[in-house]
């Protein structure tokens, strides 16, 4: 058990940290989107008409998209978003003003929703879906780590409040690991399990194959009541969006839709899948209605009522946090950070307890793990800050060496991450303090750059309700800067272990 905990922790710890970090940021993905896409820092109109979504729909028709996904604007995401897949397999996203329907200038960024959030569950490795499987394995091992951790430290339940920062780094690290692990245990287990359950059909498809045989595609239709019909190749106009939404609401009662998925746009067989926003329930899908886009008739409607499907959606919903509940959102953020602390201190403890021995024996193990740990903990913070800074520095529509703005931002993220690894390798133990200082400087300059390039400085952002997300991100960046600076100072002032040992002997 001890072996399992130690080694799966060391091998997968860095990846787990990246997944937890990106997941924690994804709790506030829409807020980061506002920060990184200044043109979308809009106020929701007092009375929103669904007909405002027509220009977004027509853009999809003009692009000859087979289906257009239209996201309904809301307080956290006050833009009409149109998304479709092009013939070459790439995706196009366009943003529209929720008050006028006018198209907003291209923001040239993947921001959080299209970079940080997919990083959380695929590591952005698209080839053969390998990212899903790596993250899935990490999720399984996280649960195995939780179980083995509890088995090893059975007795820590007796004193799980013990954190002694005054002790040596090694001891204090283990204390913190235990506190974050034991007190956050329910969250760590549930968040890992629910993350896996979301994608059960990818991870464990054998049960679907067993009962469906060759027609596994029927599973989606039977489990979720989905509907489909082929295009008729005859042009037709779509009826009013307000009428479509009214028909959908008549089928499910209270509640607005969160997206309208228009299939066969511009065709006589056009139909709209309206999905009820699950703002007031934990489960992630509450009701779906399919409306004929020409006649306005209800084609199909479904509500999750089969027990296993309801349970699956509840578990998935508790991971997705699409509900409107600010307290829970902040609690998830805090507990996500606790998960990051748990993983980082686990790795750190491994290094601390072996550093001396490995140095004596001339082994490189502790050194390598330490460099990787530094890069995966402070390194990913630096990379994230650089990603946000590049977003504020690069002008819209810029291209460098034939790369567009989106590509440059992502390259900056990865180059910065790589640089932290090289630095950690060269600087060894001192890398911690150095990189913490860099985090402090970068986070503070991101706030400054936001104020300079958009004019939305903290005081101004706090004054307007619709720019609170921007104020929140700025405040978090400043807090990060302060904490990182304090940690850097504490680490720089610490006596190196050799000297401490010499003093103890004297």
């Amino acid at each position, binding site marked *: *058990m001890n*072996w*399992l905990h130690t080694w799966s922790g060391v091998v997968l710890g860095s990846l787990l940290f990246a997944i937890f970090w990106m997941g924690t940021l994804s709790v506030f993905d829409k807020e980061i989107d506002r920060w990184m896409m200044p043109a979308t820092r809009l106020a929701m109109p007092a009375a929103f008409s669904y007909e405002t979504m027509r220009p977004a729909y027509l853009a999809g028709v003009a692009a000859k998209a087979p289906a257009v996904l239209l996201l309904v604007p809301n307080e956290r995401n006050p833009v009409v978003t149109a998304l479709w897949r092009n013939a070459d397999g790439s995706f196009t996203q366009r943003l529209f003003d929720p008050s006028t329907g006018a198209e907003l200038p291209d923001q040239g960024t993947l921001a959080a929703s299209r970079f940080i959030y997919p990083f959380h569950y695929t590591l952005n490795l698209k080839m053969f879906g390998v990212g899903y499987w790596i993250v899935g*394995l990490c999720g*399984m091992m996280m*649960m*195995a780590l939780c*179980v*083995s951790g509890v088995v090893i430290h059975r007795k820590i339940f007796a004193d799980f409040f013990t954190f002694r920062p005054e002790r040596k780094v090694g001891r204090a690290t283990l204390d913190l690991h235990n506190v974050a692990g034991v007190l956050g245990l329910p969250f760590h287990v549930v968040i890992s*399990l629910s993350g*896996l*359950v979301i994608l*059960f*059909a990818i*991870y*464990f*498809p*054998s*049960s*679907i*194959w*067993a*009962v*469906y*045989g060759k027609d596994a595609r029927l*599973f989606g239709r*039977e*489990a979720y009541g989905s509907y489909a019909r082929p295009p008729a190749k005859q042009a037709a106009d779509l009826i009013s969006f307000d009428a479509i939404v009214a028909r959908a609401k008549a089928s499910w009662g209270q509640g607005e839709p969160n997206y309208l998925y228009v299939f066969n746009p511009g065709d006589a067989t056009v139909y709209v899948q309206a999905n009820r926003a699950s703002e007031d329930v934990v489960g992630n899908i509450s009701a779906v209605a399919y409306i004929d886009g020409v006649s306005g008739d209800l084609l199909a409607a479904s509500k999750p009522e*089969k*027990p*296993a*499907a309801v*349970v*699956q959606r509840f*578990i998935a919903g508790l991971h997705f946090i699409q509900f409107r509940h600010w307290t829970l959102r902040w609690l998830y953020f805090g507990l996500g950070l606790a998960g990051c602390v748990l993983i980082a201190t686990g790795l750190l403890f491994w290094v601390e307890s072996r550093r001396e021995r490995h140095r004596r024996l001339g082994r490189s193990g502790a050194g390598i793990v330490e460099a990787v740990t530094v890069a995966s903990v402070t390194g990913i913070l630096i990379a994230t800050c650089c990603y946000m800074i590049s977003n504020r520095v690069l002008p819209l529509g810029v291209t460098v060496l034939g790369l567009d703005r989106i590509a440059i931002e992502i390259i900056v993220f990865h180059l910065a991450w790589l640089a932290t690894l090289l630095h950690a390798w060269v600087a060894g133990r001192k890398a911690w303090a150095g990189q913490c200082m860099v985090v402090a400087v970068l986070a503070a300059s991101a706030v400054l750059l936001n104020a300079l390039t958009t004019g939305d400085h903290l005081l101004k952002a706090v004054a307007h309700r619709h720019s609170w997300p921007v104020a929140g991100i700025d405040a978090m960046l400043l807090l990060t800067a302060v904490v990182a600076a304090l940690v850097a100072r504490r680490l720089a002032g610490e006596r190196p272990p050799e000297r401490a040992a010499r003093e103890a002997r004297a």
Partner: protein
Amino acid sequence: MKTFARTMLAIVGGYVGTSAIIAALAGIAVAAGGMERSEAATLTSMLGFVIYLAVIIWSFADPALLRVALGLGAVSGLSYAVVLLLARAPV
């Protein structure tokens, strides 16, 4: 070497074994329990994560690696036989 074998058994063997078990469970739930197809598949797939976790823990906790391998192999084989039988029988 033994460590590598144990890890492979837990990760790969555990996955294959779990897949076989949940496939058999889903088949039985539909054939004998009269459960809806989509429900049986959803339920057993979700159970799969718990079963997989148990298998991983077991293969690291049990000092006798051979016992784990034989046990897992037997259960998987039996499950696979059930799946094949149910596939042939008209439901």
